[in-house]
């Protein structure tokens, strides 16, 4: 099969130098658009109403916008959801920068929720001498402390084991999630004697209405939470990029041998960082348990602890970029929910959409790191 004239291969790959920022942005945007187009095709195949009437495709894409932005309530919901997801993702970031793969954000957050609700359950709504024993503000402070401690404890246990016995943190933190879930089940059985395993919304421990004139009073809570998470974003960003602790985290993440060589106490950094990571999960737990739900179920965090891992990775552990990535995921989520109602499809459909779009965005990394060279026009034949 050998001939004297051999063609260059049609395509070959070469590694790129770093691309300018705008170029990367264009590639990612193209991936997003392509992903959405494929979503449309998949929807055309899966959704019966679309198959019968393809002219409703426009409505399909409109639903995405509608899901997040069509009404005031939805806009608030969008930003509130982004804030909660972002908060958990921020909690993961210090650990991830250290290459400590904390997959336990779900459990750490849930423990934060549980701690907040436990404080509220035992202390709230009690009267002494006809007066409220614990006014809401004091409850909120106590819940805040309890959530942070609970999250930190849940986070630091795997870190201590890692530091002492070099256990695998991924498995350990993952397993701690299940312990947390069953611990919540246990508490619910204890707290709700009727066996309905639903606690109901507690009436005490409400957030104060700080902002008025937003329409509904809960929008004030939302705004408070959004501001709080915005503050945390800035703090985490500064902590990681400008503080000595943040620098140590980066060095440990890159190479433990380098860290030891310059005299960094690696175990101390691991434990300290996981305390922080767990504490921030606890804060997210407080937001859910005290600010929003005032109740707890095993599904209070609802998988956001895992979605947050995605948010973190997509943003390459950059807190500012995480605002965008958590926004993207919530946008897709709410949009797909909307499609489920409009077109009457299964509730699993949102996951399909998110999966497809993320696949394209993650896949686009390949085109950021590598260049594809196509064969140039025929070179004159070489004969020997």
């Amino acid at each position, binding site marked *: 099969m*050998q001939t004297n004239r*051999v063609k260059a291969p049609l395509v070959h790959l070469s590694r790129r130098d770093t691309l300018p920022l705008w170029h990367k942005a264009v590639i990612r945007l193209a991936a997003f658009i392509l992903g959405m187009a494929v979503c449309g095709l998949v929807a055309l195949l899966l959704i019966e109403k679309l198959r019968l009437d393809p002219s409703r495709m426009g409505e399909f894409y409109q639903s995405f916008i509608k899901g997040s932005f069509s009404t005031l309530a939805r806009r608030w919901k969008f930003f509130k959801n982004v804030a909660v997801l972002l908060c958990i993702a921020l909690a993961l970031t210090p650990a991830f920068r250290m290459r400590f793969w904390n997959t336990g954000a779900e459990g750490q957050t849930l423990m934060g929720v549980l701690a907040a609700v436990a404080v509220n359950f035992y202390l709230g709504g009690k009267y002494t001498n006809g007066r409220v024993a614990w006014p809401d503000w004091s409850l909120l402070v106590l819940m805040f402390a309890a959530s942070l401690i609970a999250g930190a404890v849940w986070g630091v246990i795997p870190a201590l084991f890692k530091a002492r016995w070099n256990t695998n943190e991924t498995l350990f933190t993952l397993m701690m999630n299940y312990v947390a879930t069953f611990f919540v089940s246990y508490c619910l059985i204890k707290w709700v004697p009727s066996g309905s395993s639903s606690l109901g919304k507690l009436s005490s421990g409400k957030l104060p209405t700080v902002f008025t004139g937003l329409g509904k009073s809960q929008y004030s809570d939302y705004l408070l939470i959004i501001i709080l998470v915005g503050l945390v974003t800035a703090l985490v960003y500064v902590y990681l990029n*400008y503080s*000595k602790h943040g620098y140590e985290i*980066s060095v440990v993440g890159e190479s433990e041998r*380098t860290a030891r060589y*310059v005299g960094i106490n690696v175990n101390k950094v691991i434990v300290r960082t996981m305390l922080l990571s767990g504490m921030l999960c606890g804060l997210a737990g407080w937001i859910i348990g005290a600010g929003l739900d005032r109740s707890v179920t095993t599904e209070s965090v609802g998988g956001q602890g895992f979605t947050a891992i995605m948010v973190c990775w997509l943003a390459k552990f950059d807190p500012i970029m995480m605002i965008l990535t958590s926004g993207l995921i919530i946008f897709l989520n709410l949009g797909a929910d909307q499609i489920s109602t409009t077109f009457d499809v299964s509730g699993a459909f949102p996951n399909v959409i998110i999966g497809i779009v993320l696949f394209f965005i993650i896949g686009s990394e390949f085109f950021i790191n590598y260049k594809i060279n196509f064969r140039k026009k025929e070179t004159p034949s070489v004969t020997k």
Partner: protein
Amino acid sequence: MQPVLELKHITKRFGKDVLANDDVSMEVYPGEVLAILGENGCGKTTLMNMVSGIYYPDAGHIYIKGEEALIRSPRDAYKYNIGMIHQHFKLVDVFSAAENIALGLDKTSGSLKQVTDKVSEISAKYGFNIDPNKKIYDMSVSEKQTVEIIKVLFRGAEILILDEPTAVLTLSEIKRLFEILRNMVADGKSVIIITHKLNEVMEVSDRVAVMRKGKHIATVNTSETTESELTDMMVGRKVDLNIARTEPVDPRPRIEIRNLSLKDEEGGWALKEVNLTACGGEILGIAGIAGSGQRQLLEAVAGLNRPETGEIIFTNPKKNKPVTLFHKKLPQIRRLAAENKLHYPDGKRVNLSGVSDKQLRALIAEEKLLFDDDEIMSLRDKTPLEIRELGVKLSFVPEDRLGMGLVGDMGISGNMMLRSYRKGKSMFLNFKKPKALGEEIIKELEVVTPSVRTPVRRLSGGNLQKVLVGREISSSPKVLMAAYPVRGLDINSSYTIYNLLAKQKSLGTAVIYVGEDLDVLMELCDRIVVMNSGRVSEPLDARSVKKEELGRLMTVSHREGE
């Protein structure tokens, strides 16, 4: 005779700016060893990667036995009977040699038993010494290399490419490898060896192709050339190979190691009763076959491992020198004064009772408090941080540059901070000084990098080393330890490093240099000790010692169970 391999006008670019190979043409004949010689980063490996299917050329053609060949993958390369042994081995640790060789073969190659038999056959034919059933994790580097070579021979390679095969081997292993290569060419195979070591080129090759900055300079017959002619072609200009060695000025013991013993991970002795003194103002060379305990010795001094027995004594030459806040805090200075160890410039004793902290600071700033004597302290069982807090300015250039000395993902300025980021009470980093230091090092040492922010992972070996050494000497150390600081560096970069070490010596630093090239050790150092199986020889005068004596000390075997 028809060449077995012919490259014509090969050009390869990486990105916009890097022209790795520029219009390179060369031939390889059957039954010869062709050495490709060149400095680091001259494009030797890139060129061979195109022959072995790792890269694809941007322009140019490759001919095998006169036919144009299309090599898109290593599998294609095997089809043309080309096999490359890379610098970093690609073996599965938990598999045996035979299993690794069988890996990826199709069914027609037969059972593992048949593979094993054929491996034994190949071994016997060319003189390899290998147990096909030994697991990779039990093997020495040299054995692993042997497995890689057999792997390509097994696949029928007629053209073998070896990328820096001697970098990881001891002298006797190198000799053995060269014998095997000669057996292979006697069998009609062609061997291409990529190297930057001139003596090896002279010893093993039939012809030498010299490359410089991506271009093929010339191909000459080894028997008709000399080392100096090759050097000229390689570097493009006459280089002065003399290292300026000054006489040590007032050498006094700085680090004394007494009876130091240390166990390795397996429980054997990595260091056995080591006695060693390094003096300020001299370069102490440590010679020895790689893996004789050099790394452990330096790491013990740096506080990175825990010796079983022995002492490491550091003498800080402080007699009649002022107390500074760099290595002493105020309470420590008060204690020193209480112990009657300080005096004023006029000879009066220092009494600090009734002196406020503010007044004390002023006294220190004016350098009014002087030590009576040198400070003597033990470094054993101290962590690197504790050593630093004692005020010991100890710098260490480790062997593993990216895995230990530098942080690959950070820029030069980020790496400059590694040693100094703790300074000051603020919880935030100070970026200004490290950045200025980084820029200074780039300028002074001619580091080639797009900016101080570019991750150092992207720099070449020589530039990395300049950054690392530059940082380590920037703190004006009292002791500077360097392990294989020129390994993998080209001649020019090597001499930059030698000169930096010589400069530190002239500043009174105790320099400890672990090297492998005996000629360099003998030209650069003042005294040389030889390490052999965790033991250290008596110091020898580097100016008068014979190379044969060093070689003998390196290879003489110590009786087991002593």
